[in-house]
């Protein structure tokens, strides 16, 4: 039986504090999927090549297959399961659904998390910036074009919502 020793780990995942006993050799991907049953995060290679396993660690996109879970002690982790605010979908989720940003949907959680980090740093990214930010997320179905369009649409929605919220306040 695999002999790697178990270690107590504290993570904050999607705003929930989680204490788990994990094997020290496990990656963040494995702990999320196997120990925390957060199977929304996918894997296409487990070698850092495809981006399907992207989650946010302290707001930054990371490849969860390359990160040992132990390196995430006390970190804030955001996964696809936390992207919607209860029953309110994130504008990126809506835009992907509406504009063909997904087909099989297997790359989608990773795409969405990477895109979320992008939009948080760059409210209205250019196409070049979107391509740059998402070029590490491979997709075999869509040909990327509708993914790019989805990100653009989401950026517009977010901006409009913020503007109208600001308008209401002033």
């Amino acid at each position: 039986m695999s002999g790697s020793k178990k270690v107590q780990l504290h993570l904050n995942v999607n705003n929930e504090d989680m204490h788990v006993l994990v094997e020290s050799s496990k990656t963040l991907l494995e702990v999320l999927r196997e120990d925390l049953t957060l199977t929304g995060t996918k894997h296409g290679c487990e070698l850092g090549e495809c981006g399907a396993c992207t989650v946010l660690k302290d707001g930054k996109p990371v490849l969860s297959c390359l990160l040992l879970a132990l390196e995430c002690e006390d970190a804030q982790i955001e996964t696809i399961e936390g992207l919607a605010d209860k029953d309110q979908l994130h504008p990126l989720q809506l835009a992907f659904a509406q504009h063909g940003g997904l087909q099989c949907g297997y790359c989608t959680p990773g795409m969405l998390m990477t895109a979320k980090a992008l939009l948080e740093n760059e409210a209205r990214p250019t196409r070049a910036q979107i391509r740059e930010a998402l070029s590490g997320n491979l997709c075999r179905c869509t040909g990327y074009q509708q993914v790019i369009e989805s990100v653009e649409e989401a950026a517009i929605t977010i901006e409009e919502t913020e503007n109208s919220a600001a308008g209401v306040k002033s």
Partner: protein
Amino acid sequence: MSHREYSSDTFRIIGKPRVRIDALSKVTGQTLFADDISLPRMLHCKLLRSSLPHALIETVDVSRASAHPGVQLVLTGEDFPVEYGILPVSQDERPLCRDKVRFVGDPVAAVIACDEQTACEALSLIDVSYQPLPTIATVAEALQATEAPLQNYAEEHNIHRRLAYSFGDVDEALAQADHVFEDTFLYEGNTHMAMEQHASVAATDPDGRVTLWSSTQCPHYVHRALAKALEMPAAHIRVIACPNGGGFGGKTDPFNHEIVVTKASMLLGRPVKICLTRQEVFYCHRGRHQVTMKFRTGVNNDGKLTGMHLQTLLDGGAYGSYGIASTFYTTALQPVTYQLPRYSWEACRVFTNKPPSGPKRGHGTPQPRFGQEVQLDKIAEKLQIDPAKLRLGMIAPANSLTCNFLKVGTIGLAECIDRVVSRSGWKDKHKKLPRGRGVGLACGAYMSGAGTAIYWNKMPHSGVQIKLDRSGAVTVYCGATDVGQGSDDVLVSLVTEVLGIETIDVKCVTGDTDLTPVDLGSYSSRVTLMMGNAAIEAAERARDLIASAVAEKLEIAVDHIGFAERLVFDVEDPNRNMTFQQAVICAEEKHGTMATTGSYAPPKSAARFPGGGVGPSPTYSYTAAVAEVEVDEASGVVEVTRIYIAHDIGRSLNPVQVEGQVIGGVYMGVGEALMEESGSRRLPPKLSDALVHDNPSMLEYKTLTMHDMPEVCVDIIENPDPNGPFGAKEVGQGPLLPIMPAIANAIFDAVGVRVDEVPITPVKVLKALEMQAAGHDARVGPKAFPNIEWPQAMFVLPPWEGGDGKASNRPERKRAAKMHTMDKVKGASEQT
């Protein structure tokens, strides 16, 4: 009954851009793919794979592995006495190899343990002793005599199968042509690389029934393979196809790992899971065959083809897989795209000690499409005819038979060509752009579903059941599998349209051999058409039952009953209505428990010669594309700057999804054109000299990233085909076909060199540019087609020469026949 004409004006769902029904569960991460399934007491399986490309297995000693703590079971080839395979003619696989391994990666043993890590440890404790056999590394080697052929059913040496057909007297057609063009091409093999790694989970119930959840495109074929390989009644086996994280043909074979975990689960009485690593996925392959091709094409000065002779040679890798079908497909569909008065072909598939080739998007047709479209570009160049005009002059009439007795339906190719020509500004660009920039045009056609099943039978290709009850809920059941293409959405939208309700009111259950009627699977672009027709039939039957009950209740003539907006109403006076739920209650009162079925089987083929079962389809889609490229002459790097594409889809059911399928096809085509290649290489002699996969990782196997993907301008041509559901044809595969040749032709337009090979890598472009600079023929590509002893061709007279679709005796009938398009006898032909 209440059949009312459907038309684009009255559609409420069909043709409208819509959020696909599975989108929200996918963007929230809730869709369960096979590897997301976890069951109580579940064990994990790992396979020991051969490290040698070709060897006899002498002994497999599993004693140390079995004793490893945490190991529950170790299986070897001895546990699997029965062979299986997707095609009845090549039952050549075993879940675990027994006597022989045939490629690096062939599975030899399986360990089932408490976790993956433990199973991996135990793999290293299995001792296999092999007696190496000579490795067959190339098609050339496979054609040579050998003492140890890979498969004992090979025709000769390592030749899997040779086929030869002649539709009319092609020698005569070429002799009479103004010109004969002769060209050879090479299309390297490549792979699907679906983002999801194959995964399967099996669970046994105490009564002896077993269930397999799997990432498969064809649960029905897996079901059959399990029954055969495990020697148990199919009725006790349930296969559930999980939503696939992409397939592209890579999950259409029944796989050894699926059978292994099913058996293991039955032996242990516990659930067993396997998930292949990405490297294993590359070794499982079943990807695009490498094909060497030679075209001899007769053409008159006016650009009309007189006949074509095509030879293809396929590298099949180690097993049969879909190979015989793939071999037919490298030839059979050629006459669908353009009218071809006479056509002969020879095709040969060989075995090599490499991962098995199989079906990938376009199955066997992208390779010869590349060859013919590049050759047409050469013909246009030589005859000084615009390439678009040349092709417009070759389009067959709608609803006609091809020389090989394929029945084509609607043909939107002319419109497709016109559209890409005008949208791309072709006339101002072709031959007019500065050196280094160019445009190229190409076309293609593809089946909307194979007209014949993998195994001979007279049953439906797709079945649909609909259940309705007093809650107003509608559930539709179909064996079809959503591999990402959106087939669940198609199913629900068709039923929704017919019943006048909303998509949220219709639940679908798909890809489950216990619950759903058989659908053959997600391959050959068959699902929208076949499942769709079955779904419409089932839905219309439900509608008729409801209409008759409502007509009685409201005292309306039954043919005046309408369905829309969740109401069932009098079309003359829509205020006389009831809700859909009330209407179902009426129907349940009148007819009892409500369920309907629909079935679809393709029309009978006109081809009545042996082998004529490959190629027929209820209808064909057509595509045209213009590629714009920039070639950097210093580096040889080709940048595709834009693709204009028009696709004849018959009817677009959901434009968002249709456009996505087109762009996805373009994406894969650009990758195949420029970089995708499944190569192999030998390890250094001191390591083992074994023939291994050259690039079994997503880093080494190059694909386009978001950075590399050109802009795609999509036009959808709608001209409903009577054989399609509401007129729809396929879109999943056709749009890939013209991309590779359009890019090759654009490179010629840009810098005047021909790369008659795919992928067109910078090295090849540079080589061609160097040849050009040195004043030589600026062409990179195979020099010759290998010498193969072909069997006597099966001779079939084309329909316009009096043929009846049967194979005939050649000489008498041939001489009596009149040529179709040529009335003048030409003298000397010229070779180019």
